[in-house]
């Protein structure tokens, strides 16, 4: 079983000027197949925790293991390759490549994995169908609504068949209908394909759908609630 483990993770910003402890000894274990929300007030360390787990940022203290790999020990290039194979990201601002179509955006990550063209195309179309965008495949991001763009971002995150999807405030810019729609898709993928989702959020609609809710306060785990 693939697991994410953090042990005593500390992250301090501006260590030389006015130090800000974004994470202060976070111990956490997230198992394969979970649908977990990391919640907390602004500045509590949610995004930092996701960045550290995703290898986008390195902890100042403590260990982070993802699927048994000590990601802190990896070189920059190894870490990029590791992220590409094992972790999918969904960002608050969608962050699609504006000059590529929806299909090309999804294909792009697989291109970085050197997957054959036919396989890339088939999987991109399959994923876009799965997120309900079969009729928008050739549209560029500027031609899609916020909700549609975020669904493309989810399809892109799923494209390399990652073990974990890390979603940083994925519904922050979406209306209620788009949020519900996106959560339905992610919940279905979690249940049917056992993909692990970890969200940072303060959106109650997301928190309500999560099966585990980890609350951070001042960079520490305050509560960890597992729901039936």
């Amino acid at each position, binding site marked *: 079983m693939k697991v994410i483990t953090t042990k005593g993770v500390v992250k301090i910003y501006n260590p030389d000027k006015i130090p800000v402890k974004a994470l202060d000894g976070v111990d956490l274990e997230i198992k394969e197949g979970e649908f977990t929300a990391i919640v907390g007030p602004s500045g509590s360390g949610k995004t930092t925790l996701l960045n550290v787990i995703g290898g986008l940022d390195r902890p100042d203290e403590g260990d982070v293991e993802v699927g048994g790999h000590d990601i802190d020990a990896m070189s920059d290039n190894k870490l990029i390759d590791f992220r590409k*194979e094992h972790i999918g990201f969904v*960002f608050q601002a969608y*962050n699609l*490549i*504006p000059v590529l179509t929806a299909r090309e955006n999804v294909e792009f*990550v697989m291109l*970085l994995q050197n997957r054959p063209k036919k396989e890339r195309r088939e999987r991109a179309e399959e994923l876009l169908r799965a997120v309900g965008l079969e009729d928008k495949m050739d549209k560029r991001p500027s031609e899609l609504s916020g909700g549609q763009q975020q669904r493309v971002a989810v399809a892109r995150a799923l494209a*390399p068949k990652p073990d974990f999807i890390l979603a940083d405030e994925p519904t922050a810019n979406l209306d209620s209908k788009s949020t519900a729609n996106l959560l339905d898709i992610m919940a279905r993928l979690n249940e049917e394909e056992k993909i692990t989702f970890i969200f940072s959020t303060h959106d109650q609609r997301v928190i309500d759908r999560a099966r585990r809710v980890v609350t951070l306060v001042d960079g520490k785990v305050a509560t960890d609630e597992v729901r039936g």
Partner: protein
Amino acid sequence: MLFRLAWRNIWRNKRRTAITAASILFAVFFASFMEAFQKGAWDHLISSVVNYYYGYVQVHQKGYWDEQTIDKAFPLVDSLKQLQEKAPKVQQVLPRIESFALASTGEHTSGVMVVGIDPQVEDAMTKLRSRISDGNYLKVDEEAALVAEGVAENLGLGVGDTIVLISQGYHGVNAAGKYPIKGMVNFGSPELNKQMVYLPLPVAQYFYGANGLVTSLALQIDDQDDIKPTLRALNSQLDTAAYEVMDWKDLLPDLVEAKTLDSAGNIIVYVILYLIIAFGIFGTILMMSKEREYEFGVLISIGMHRWQLGLTVWLEVIMLGLLGAVLGIVAALPVVWHFHLNPIRFSGDYAEAMEKFGFEAIFPTLFEAHIFLTQALLVFILTAILALYPIFKIRKLKPVEAMRA
């Protein structure tokens, strides 16, 4: 897909791309035209000077050019008369015997250069016949002289008068002769006008006591591109211990120096032009790098290696540079072609001064592929260097900080 991504990125900000491409277009257009004009003008000038007298290539006895004396005359054997067989690009071989003499009439004496020529072949290259201002042109088998107007004026001579020449001939023999003046020639150059006297070759050879000998063979070559093959062919087939083969650059070092100086001046203009363009391109690159920091962070986050991202951005800048360069070439081609066919003509004092020296005051542009390709290559190198900046930025980029920006 990296290529496609780079190409589409160029068109993300159409106005900025258009402005950058237009500035490169202008630089390439201006630099191409300037170079074509400068090289064309020089080619025309060199061709005029060379065909005026020297020829693009000359053959002498070894050591003649350093010490120009009649004693270094050499026999004009049949194989030398037929140099075309050794070097097919040679159109005509102009045999000459030349040395200095005293010209005299009554109480006036003047130093002159007496040149023995084959009138027919001489005219084919130097158009000497067209310079006749009075009287008639020489025939090869007559004892007569063509005298430059300045010489005639100094000595108070006219057509039909007799000129007396005295000199030291081959290996110290006394050279003396008198010749009726058959025609006057006018040279634009005052230097030539003051000293040139032409005799038919056999007459001059007899005068110098050098029967069958010449001091130089001037070779008429129509195309400058044929000079090097001709030099190669002659150097490999003639006995280089006995003969020297020299091209116009060896014969006219002052002209080469003037051309080099003029080109050096233009290089400064090119450097300024390209510096301005470089700042323009760099400004675009700076803006683009700053604007897309966030996107670069995202791309690295989702698994794009820094080198792949750097390559994409590099390709963008290169494509932008080449786009401008190609447009610049396309814009310059018809203009350069037009002035190649319809050279710029100067008038007024400048034209008069040039014509005085026997040169037409026209400046055709040189229409050759290498002029345009050089500019494209320069832009390519320039943009390739400038495009290293975003690569450097991407190498140092921290995705989290970039995405927080």
